């Protein structure tokens, strides 16, 4: 009797696992769609004026940079990049190359390296976003 009970319990446990993970993924999907920003397609409707393509690419890069910033940097630099544990990142007076080096190598004892987490395109997007912060 006990074996049958355990087998039935196993079936219920497997179902509970599947329902929990599937429910979590579904809930995360709903939350993502609720909080997602307007898509680029909504920004590019209609005939494009000269220079619009470059502007759209730059905007997309900055948007991606902001997303990456919130995921990776905001914990220390604050959501508004005004600084918390880490410094204020507005009006940076460092070159793009120096910013890239700092992001990828980190600062010993102060800031972790993001070399394993971010690729070159991510760093470019982050830098593009940081360059908007002087506004």
């Amino acid at each position, binding site marked *: 009797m006990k074996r049958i009970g355990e087998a039935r319990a196993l079936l219920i446990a497997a179902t509970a*696992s599947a329902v*929990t993970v599937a429910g979590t993924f579904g809930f995360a999907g709903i939350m*993502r769609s609720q909080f997602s920003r307007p898509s680029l397609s909504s920004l590019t409707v209609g005939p494009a004026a000269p220079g619009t393509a470059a502007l759209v690419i730059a905007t997309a890069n900055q948007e991606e940079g902001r997303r990456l910033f*919130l995921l990776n940097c905001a914990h220390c630099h604050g959501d508004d990049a005004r600084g918390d544990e880490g410094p204020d990142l507005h009006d940076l007076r460092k070159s793009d190359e120096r910013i890239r080096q700092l992001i990828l190598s980190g600062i010993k004892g102060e800031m*972790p390296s993001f070399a394993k987490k971010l690729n070159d395109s991510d760093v470019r997007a982050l830098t593009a976003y940081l360059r908007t912060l002087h506004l």
Partner: protein
Amino acid sequence: MLLTSLFWSRAHGGATHFPIALVFASAFFDALGFYCQNSPQKRQLNGAGYLLIILSVFGCLGAVVTGLALSQWQVGGTGLTLRHHMVVWPAVALIVGLGTWRCLVGKRPSTLGFKIYLGVVLVACALIGLAGFFGGEMLLGGQ
């Protein structure tokens, strides 16, 4: 604003250690109880393992919600985030399954059932430990 990335980062950092510690402690007490055959402590050790695995299921829920809010509701990602998620989700599934099974079977499962349970708990420990390692690497990697 209260619900910033910084808030979720700290909330996840705090919440995520509960299920890790609870699963490891549950496995430890259960394994100890298993090897204390016919000892008067066996029942108490297995009782502690039973309680802790059920608590770890609730701990998982907090860790998952804060982690999802921190990652802006991404269940995948890239790089270390992806590796973290690739081990987190199987670990969560196993912990929920183990807690449910234990809850349904009660404090005295059969010897064979308990042996299999212990093996699966060890896999869950390895996965949740690896998830914690990748999570730590995301924050402190390279230092």
